């Protein structure tokens, strides 16, 4: 019961945060709304007992991506937009259609398996298990990804080298 209540509250916060993030013209307000969305998402992960993912969600998305966004915004000139102006574009209809299509596609696996089969074996989402998974079967994937990210980081540094002063390379990961 309490999980249900928490789920609905967190979901409401997440949706509201996402909406505000999209609608706000003031960039800083938008970023902070986005962070609220991330925080609510992290709460939802916690409800699913995925505590490691929840922590990483905060660490990476709020701590790193959000800060990076703030940095990018501070480098631009006009921060505060006009909140009063309505945000419409001519292609809103097609946008809506595409959004709906993506939503359906995402839900497709769940729809296909309707009604949901009984869970026979409870997952064990402990950090330890995750560590073993990462270090045994998926170690190659992890390393390749890490290499890719390092390459991207070095590339970013190289690209930024010509500029005035290297800003933070960003993510603490």
């Amino acid at each position, binding site marked *: 019961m309490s999980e249900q209540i928490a789920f609905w509250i967190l979901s409401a916060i997440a949706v509201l945060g996402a909406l505000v993030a999209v609608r706000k013209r003031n960039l800083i307000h938008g970023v902070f709304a986005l962070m609220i969305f991330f925080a609510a998402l992290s709460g939802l992960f916690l409800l699913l007992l995925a505590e*490691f993912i929840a922590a990483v969600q905060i660490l990476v998305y709020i*701590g790193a991506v959000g*800060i990076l966004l703030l940095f990018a915004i501070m480098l631009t000139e006009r921060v505060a937009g006009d909140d009063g102006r309505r945000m419409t574009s001519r292609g809103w209809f097609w946008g809506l259609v595409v959004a709906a299509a993506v939503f359906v596609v995402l839900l497709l696996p769940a729809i296909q398996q309707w009604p949901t089969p009984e869970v026979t074996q409870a997952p064990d989402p402990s950090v*330890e298990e995750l560590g073993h998974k990462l270090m045994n079967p998926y170690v190659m994937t992890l390393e390749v990804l890490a290499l890719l990210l390092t390459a991207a980081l070095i590339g970013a540094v190289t690209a930024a080298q010509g500029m005035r002063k290297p800003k933070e390379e960003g993510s*603490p990961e």
Partner: protein
Amino acid sequence: MSLELIRDILVATVPLLLIFPTLFAFTTWLERKALARIQNRIGPNKVGVPLTRYGGRFSLFGLGQPMADGIKMLFKENIVPRDADRLFHLLAPILALIPAMLVLCFLPIDFPWINNIQDSVKAFMLDGAVIFFFAITGLNTLAVFMAGWASRNKYSLLGGMRAIAQMVSYEIPLVLSAVIVVMMVGSLNAAEIANAQAGWNWFIFTPWGLAAFIIFFIAALAETNRSPFDLPEAESEIIAGYFTEYSGFKFALFFLGEYIAMFAISGLAVTLFLGGGAGPGVAALPWLSVIWFLVKIFALIAVMIWLRGTLPRLRVDQLMGFAWKFLLPLSILNIFIAGSALHLLAGGRLAGLDEKQPILRQLMEGANPLVVAGLWIGALLILYVAANGLNQLSRAKVRPREYKYAE
């Protein structure tokens, strides 16, 4: 949700919210007194028991000072600049305090009253407690930025920008030095890390642990904006930095948040490197572990105060250079050293270890003392040479100069 659970949560959290703010008040007094002694002064000694005259008989070494400051701040007028972003201006001090308070739950302090509550309520029993700690302390950055941006003051903005750059940079060496401990224990669980160091098996007594502790402490100073890394609030340059426009109780909240963050990060350092609640006499009297934990926290805070009284401030580019060019390579090298050492100690039996026990201790049991001694000397040597070399590399080149005398 059962009543017991709610009771347990309250039992686990409410005392923390009472104890640490009280300690904060005491720490401000301690800091003022200690700085005064460093500077050849006496420090506050007139304001003692409430409702007595100043300089009365009951001055109690000025222990009433924090209380007077607190009451005064509470009733001080709250000013919001006209152009400020009112919502963010209000939220920033609150957001600065909440993460600092929150992470206190992750410190494995065995208060007597939490022995009876269920493990699932204890935050430090979480499998990923250490990761959570870093994730939540990182939110402090946002509060600082919010304060700097919302005040619409140029000094505040400069302070906020400095704070973000500094905190994001120093988080990396901070986390990387904690990785060493996680490697040696094989767990992210704060309670397990503390238990692994029971007796005198503190990780600071290993070469890589010592190096990691020093890196961690330096990065922690920067994370909590303490001298010599107090650039975001550098008085002589940018007035009061991000809280230039804060008055009254909001300012007090910032102050409180800053000190609670100091407690939290020192508490983590104690958990990771200084054996948690371990200390003499704990085996006989379990409640002593609380005392030892707090004593260790205060020892670290005393060092912070001492540094504040002695060192000047770094410049912003030197600060960043220090994090990226010195601390980061050193902490990565340290991880390599620790990993190789564990591997050498294990001699191929790493896979056969009991996963529920701290790795380092199992390895140490069957190890040859000569190998251990060789490893330690080697590790210390490598670290020393590396630190020296990095220092030479990252130091700015200066032209030679000579002082002459004319008769």
